[in-house]
C-alpha cells in the first residue's frame, strides 16, 4: 500500500509547478486524474519528443490517469463537477480569474463538495496587486531575490539552473494540501489553499533575508561560495573543480592536514570562523596552491578518508549514473504506451512501511476518459453522445 492510496486528486494543471505538485501526490499513491482539453495541454506540444510523445509532458505527469473534457462546453463543466463530488483534492494553475470563468473556481466546487481541498498555484497568488499577472519561474526568481544572489561575483545575472520557483511552489502546494487534509480529518471541512511561484521563491531566501536583516548588507552572488562560512566552495584541482565544505574548526583542521598544509590551521589570519570568512580570498588562494597540483580524484579520496564533506561537480550524465543514485532508486525505468521504454526520476523521500513508487507512465491523451466516465456513472450511450459532440 502507498500512503495516499484512496485519495482522489483532480488535476487541471499545465506546465511545471502544479503538475509537479500532483506528480508528488501520484508518486505517493493518490489517484490523480489529469483533465485536459481535447487538444491536450500545451506541454504535449513540447519540442522534445519520443515517437511523437512530449518528453516534458511524460516527465511531469507520470502516475496520473488522463481524462479529456472540453470545459468550454456546459456538458464538460458538468463532468468536472460530478468528478469534484467524488474527489478529495482539486489542483489548478490558471491565472487568477480564469477558473471562475470556466465554472471550476473554489466558489463553484465547494458547495458541491464541502470536503474538497482546492489548491491554486499561480505566478503571484490569488490576491495582491500582481495577482492577475502571468508568472514564470524566471520572473519569480528575478522578483524574489534568488536571481540576485546566484552567479559570479561580478558577472552578468544568472538564474538557478533548475526552475526552483516552479519546483518549490509545487512542493509548498503539496504541503498545504496535506495539511488541509489533516484539518479535514478533524473538522470535516475542505478549504482553499493558495500559493505562488513568487512566494515559494521568497520562502527559499531564508539565509539571504536573515543576513540582510541582521547586517544591513545586500546579499550578492558569490559563485560557489557560502555567505556565512569559509572554506565552503568549489576549489581548483589540476583537472577541474571539486567542492569542499569545511566550515567548522574541526573540519578546517582536517582539510589543512589532508592537503598537506597543517600550518594553515595555525595561521592567525584563519584562526576562527569569522576570520576565515573575512579572509576568504586569501584562504582559498592558499588552499588552491596545494589542491591545484593534483587531480580531483586524488583530493576526493583523501578528503573522504579524512571525513571532510567534499564531492565532484557532476554533469547530469555522471549524476544520473552514479552508483549512489542507482542504489537509492533515483532512476526508474517505465514503459510508456506510445513512447516505449523511458526513464524517470525516482521518489526522493523513502517511507519504510508504505513507500511511494514511480510505477506508471504518463497517460496518453484521453487514455482513461471512458474508464473515468464509467466510474462516474455515465452510460455507454451518454459517453457516445459526449464523444460525438466533441465534449470528450
Amino acid at each position, binding site marked *: 500500500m502507498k*500512503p*495516499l492510496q484512496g485519495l482522489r486528486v483532480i488535476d487541471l494543471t499545465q506546465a511545471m509547478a502544479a503538475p509537479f505538485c500532483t506528480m508528488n501526490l501520484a508518486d505517493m499513491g493518490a489517484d490523480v486524474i489529469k483533465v485536459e482539453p481535447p487538444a491536450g495541454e500545451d506541454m504535449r506540444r513540447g*519540442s*522534445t*519528443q*519520443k515517437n511523437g510523445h512530449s*518528453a*516534458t509532458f511524460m516527465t511531469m505527469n507520470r502516475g496520473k490517469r488522463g481524462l479529456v473534457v472540453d470545459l468550454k462546453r456546459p456538458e464538460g463543466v458538468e463532468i468536472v463537477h460530478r468528478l469534484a463530488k467524488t474527489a478529495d483534492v482539486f489542483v489548478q494553475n490558471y491565472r487568477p480569474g480564469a477558473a471562475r470563468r470556466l465554472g471550476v473556481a473554489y466558489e463553484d466546487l465547494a458547495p458541491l463538495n464541502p470536503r474538497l481541498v482546492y489548491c491554486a498555484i499561480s505566478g503571484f497568488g490569488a490576491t495582491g*496587486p500582481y495577482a492577475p499577472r502571468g*508568472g514564470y519561474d524566471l*520572473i*519569480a526568481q*528575478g*522578483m524574489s*531575490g534568488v*536571481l*540576485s544572489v*546566484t*552567479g*559570479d561575483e561580478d558577472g552578468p*545575472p544568472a*538564474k*538557478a*539552473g533548475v526552475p*526552483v520557483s516552479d519546483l518549490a511552489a509545487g512542493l509548498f*502546494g503539496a504541503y498545504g494540501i*496535506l495539511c488541509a487534509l*489533516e484539518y479535514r480529518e*478533524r473538522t470535516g471541512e475542505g*478549504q482553499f489553499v*493558495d*500559493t505562488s511561484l*513568487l*512566494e515559494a521563491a521568497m*520562502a527559499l*531566501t*531564508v*539565509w539571504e*533575508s*536573515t543576513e*540582510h536583516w*541582521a547586517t544591513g548588507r545586500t546579499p550578492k552572488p558569490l559563485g*560557489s561560495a557560502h555567505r556565512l562560512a569559509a572554506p*565552503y*566552495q568549489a576549489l581548483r584541482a589540476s583537472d577541474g573543480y571539486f*567542492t569542499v565544505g569545511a566550515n567548522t574548526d574541526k573540519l578546517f583542521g582536517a582539510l589543512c592536514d589532508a592537503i598537506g598544509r597543517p600550518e594553515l590551521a595555525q595561521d592567525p589570519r584563519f584562526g576562527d570562523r569569522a576570520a576565515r570568512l573575512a579572509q576568504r580570498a586569501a584562504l582559498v588562494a592558499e588552499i588552491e596552491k596545494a589542491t591545484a597540483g593534483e587531480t580531483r580524484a586524488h583530493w576526493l579520496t583523501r578528503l573522504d578518508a579524512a571525513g571532510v564533506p*567534499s*564531492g565532484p561537480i557532476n554533469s*547530469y*550524465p555522471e*549524476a544520473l549514473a552514479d*552508483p*549512489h543514485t542507482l542504489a537509492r532508486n533515483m532512476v526508474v525505468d517505465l514503459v510508456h504506451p506510445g513512447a516505449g521504454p*523511458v526513464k524517470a*526520476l525516482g521518489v526522493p*523521500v*523513502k*517511507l*519504510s*512501511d508504505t513507500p511511494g513508487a514511480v510505477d506508471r507512465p504518463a497517460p496518453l491523451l484521453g487514455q482513461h476518459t471512458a474508464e473515468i466516465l464509467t466510474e462516474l456513472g455515465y452510460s455507454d450511450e451518454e459517453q457516445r453522445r459526449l464523444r460525438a459532440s466533441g465534449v470528450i
Partner: protein
Amino acid sequence: MTALEGVRVIDQTQVMAGPFCSMLLADMGADVIKVEPPDGEYTRRELPLAPGVSASFLAVNRNKRGMTLDLKQPEGVAVLKRLVATADVLVENYRPGVAQRLGVDWETLRAINPRLVYCSISGFGQTGPYAARGGFDLVAQGMSGIMSATGAEGGAPVKIGVPITDLGAGLFGVVGILCALRARRVSGRGQLVDTSLFEAGLALSAWEATQYWYTGEVPRGLGTAHRLNAPYQAFRASDGHFTVGAANDNLFPRFVSLLGLPHLTSDPRFATPRARLQNRAELQTLVEEVTVREPRAHWLRRCEAAGVPAGPIYSVPEAHADPHAQARGMVAEMEHPVLGPVKALGNPVKMSKSPPRLRTVAPALGADTDAILEDLGYGPAEIAALRKKGVL
C-alpha cells in the same frame, strides 16, 4: 484551529534542512519541541544579534518550544524516550550512525512508540554507498548535477545562491511526514521517512534529466536562459537587466511587436519555438539592440500592458519592499523578548480556514525545559537533580 493542532513533533535537528522541515510543521500549528544539547545547537553561534540571540537560529526555529537535553548521558536518553512516548513525529538530521550511537535511532524508538513517524534527513540517505558521508548543500548541489547547469557557460563553478538542496530536502521531508501520518490512520503504525540533500537535488532536476535522457545533450549553465524555450531570459536595458518569458507562439508576437520588431515572427530563424531555441543568441542580439535604448521601467510597463510576463531583478531588500510581497504577508514582524520587533519571512502557503501563523519567535536556549519535563511527570526534585548532573 490550525491544521496540525495536536500533532507533537520532536525536533532533534541542526542548521537548515531539518529545522526548516520542522518549522513548516510548526507554522501549521504542530507542537514542535526543539531538543538541543546543553550548550545549544551549532546555529546559535551564527550571526549574533544580542548575547545568546542568533539571527540564523531565529530564521528557522520560530513557533517551536525549546528544551535542552544531553543525549550523551543515559539520563538524557531516558528523558527523550519519555518524550517520544508522547510524540507523533521525530525529525533528526544527524549523520547516519550518530542516532544509533546515542541510542535514539528508529529501531529503538519505534519499540517505545509504534505510532511514531521518524524522519531522517541526511546528506545522502540512510542506505547506499555514500550513506555514511557528511553532506552539505554545496556538496549535494555539485553531485546532483545542479551546479553543472547553473552559471554562465564556460565560467568557474556557480551554485544556486540559496541552499536549494537543504530547502528541498526539508520540503520532501515534510511531504513524507504528512504522507506517513495519513498512512498511520489506516495502519495504526508509524514508519521511517528517509530523505537526503543529494536526492532532493536530483528530484529538482526533472527538466535537466529529461533533456539528457531524451536528447543526449548534456545540460549546461546558460546564465539566465531556459534550456527548452526562447526567448526566456534576462535582457539588458539602459540601466540594468530585466526578465522576460515570451517563448510560446502566443507571447512571442506580442513581445517583438512592443519592441518594434514584428517582422521577426515571419523570420524563419524565429518563426517556431524550436527555431527560436536554436537561434537564441541571434535573437538576444536583435532584442538587446532595442532594449538597451530605454530603462528597465519602460520595458516592464510595455510588457505588462501587452500581457507579456516580465519582471525586475530585485536584490533581497528590494524583494522584501515590493508591494505585492507585502500584500501577501511575505515579510512579517514578530515580537522578540530581548530584541523587540524582528522580521521574519511569511509562510508561502495561504489557507482559507486553517492558515499558517507566526506565533512565537524561536525559543531561548532551554526556555521550555521545565514546562515540558513537568508535563512528562517529572517532579521539581527530579528536574533539579537532572540539572545538577548537567543533563539539561
